[in-house]
């Protein structure tokens, strides 16, 4: 009896592995971005004095945090990353404008079920949506892994969320994960793998699974995980990634099981300033809003933009509100163009940003002033996250965000849906 994550480590190491074991394991895929990259490469090249790495073909860099750079210092750090990426012969560098690492890495076919993946970014847990063990680590760990192609792990226990029922109209995977965060708290899955399962999982698209796994770290989890289904395998095949790991957690192997009835979930927000301060939209409706951000690795995919456009079509963003929309990748942007979504959003008054992280982390493209309120589809509403320490951030689904942009106040999206 094993969990899926135990099976992944056992497969790689060729021996039985149990949760709680400390193991040193080879990593199949390593990635980082322009935010963590400078420190990763400085540790590697200048401090560890490593100038060639054993597996440059397992390494991916995506420029997403400041796309394009917002000052000369950042431009210089990005140049530093490019220079060393080339000297180290790192095989894959997706430069500015390609999108957010957690979106681009699976889109470009780098992810396969059963892999052990590390990313120098906390939301690497997103890739658990493809039945990989994917975890965020810091710069020094990444340097060590680049130098040795291995890293130590504590094999995590699994907290399984068994989902049944179906989401009602106007309620999305984002509302569900906020609801789960509210129930379990910001440390509810501390040190564990947060695994999504149960009969409802079949109805969740690849995008939905990425949204769910993306926020696993906000509950303290080391990684997120969904077992594969035919949709996921089809997505992977279309990217040239062929799966040879289709296992899931055996019944009874998870350390903890929580049951969730999807039909009970309504549109939710995480109110300032913690991700587990979750309330139904109804409780905060009417709160005046200065900025709405639709994008990020949580909710910047084509499915999210479609929902936003359906609400904003033939309507206008309320006066005094800035709506910033940032597609998660170039591919998403192009698809949105083809579907006429970008035109609808622009006509409604949105500003469209360069694919990347956008205002999610408070660097550029929509930084908040003292006392301002934002509705954001991203994953963190911490003090100071999007600019001023005195700004307040509500996390919500793209539908709630779009409805709030229309009203200039936090609004229930169900009024706007057919």
């Amino acid at each position: 009896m094993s969990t899926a994550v135990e099976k992944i480590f056992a497969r790689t190491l060729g021996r039985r592995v149990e949760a709680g074991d400390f193991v040193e394991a080879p990593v199949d895929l390593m990635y980082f971005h322009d935010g963590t990259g400078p420190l990763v490469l400085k540790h590697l090249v200048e401090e560890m004095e490593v100038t060639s790495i054993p597996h440059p073909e397992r390494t991916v860099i995506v420029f997403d945090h400041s796309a394009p750079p917002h000052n000369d210092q950042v431009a210089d750090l990005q140049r530093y990353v490019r220079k060393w990426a080339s000297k180290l012969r790192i095989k894959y560098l997706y430069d500015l404008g390609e999108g957010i690492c957690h979106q681009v890495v699976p889109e470009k076919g780098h992810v396969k079920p059963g892999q052990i993946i590390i990313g120098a970014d906390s939301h690497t847990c997103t890739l658990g949506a493809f039945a990989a063990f994917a975890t965020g680590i810091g710069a020094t760990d990444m340097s060590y892994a680049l130098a040795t192609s291995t890293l130590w792990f504590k094999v995590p226990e699994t907290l399984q969320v068994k989902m049944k029922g179906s989401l009602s109209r106007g309620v999305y995977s984002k509302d569900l994960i906020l609801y789960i965060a509210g129930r379990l708290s910001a440390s509810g899955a501390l040190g564990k793998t947060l695994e999504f399962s149960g009969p409802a999982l079949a109805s969740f698209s690849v995008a939905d699974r990425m949204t769910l796994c993306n926020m696993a770290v906000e509950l303290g989890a080391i990684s997120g995980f969904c077992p594969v289904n035919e949709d996921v395998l089809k997505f992977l095949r279309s990217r040239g990634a062929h799966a040879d790991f289709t296992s899931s957690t055996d019944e009874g192997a998870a350390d903890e099981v929580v049951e969730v009835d999807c039909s009970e979930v309504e549109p939710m927000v995480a109110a300032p300033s913690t991700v587990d301060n979750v309330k139904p939209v109804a409780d905060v409706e009417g709160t005046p809003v200065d900025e709405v951000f639709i994008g990020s690795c949580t909710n910047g995919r084509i499915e999210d933009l479609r929902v936003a456009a359906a609400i904003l079509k033939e309507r206008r963003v309320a006066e005094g509100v800035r709506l910033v929309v940032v597609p998660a990748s170039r591919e998403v942007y192009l698809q949105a163009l083809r579907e006429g979504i970008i035109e609808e959003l622009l006509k409604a008054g949105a500003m469209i940003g360069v694919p990347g992280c956008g205002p999610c982390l408070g660097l550029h493209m929509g930084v908040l002033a003292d006392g301002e309120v934002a509705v954001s589809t991203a994953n963190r509403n911490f003090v100071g996250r999007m600019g001023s320490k005195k700004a307040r951030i509500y996390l919500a689904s793209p539908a709630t965000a779009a409805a709030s942009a229309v009203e200039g106040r936090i609004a229930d999206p169900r009024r706007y849906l057919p």
Partner: protein
Amino acid sequence: MKIRGKVWKFGDDVNTDVIIPARYLRTFDSSVWPQHVMEGIDPEFSKKVQPGDIIVAGRNFGCGSSREQAALAIKLAGIAAVVAESFGWIFFRNAINNGLPAVECPGISKAVETGDLIEIDLEKGVVSTPRGILQIKPYPVFMREILAHGGLVEYFKRKIRGD
């Protein structure tokens, strides 16, 4: 290894955005980071803290982003150790990797207040507080070695590569 110092106490779920916001990270000038440490909770903290002081916190300290500058800002501010009920996974790794002892100690947040003197004994696995002695979870051997080398970079150079 024994660490003795004065306590600064914080609550649960202290995240990396309040330890150090992203806008201070886009530089190699590491002297910037300790100037803003814990700014999101106490803007004066960097001025008040003394070398050798210890941070005590509740559950899930360092949750949030993977930014290693959170651990570095604390270390470069002169903090000798962080003792918490529990840690965010990435912060915990980053702290050990940079030679900053991150000590998991259930019960600590009830046992001490800001200004108390405490002593951490990593060999014996105890923390002595004015209100009694608490047990800590021992580190696995390799983690002790990483700390003894002052961090993962030196551990790599001397232990793995054998410089």
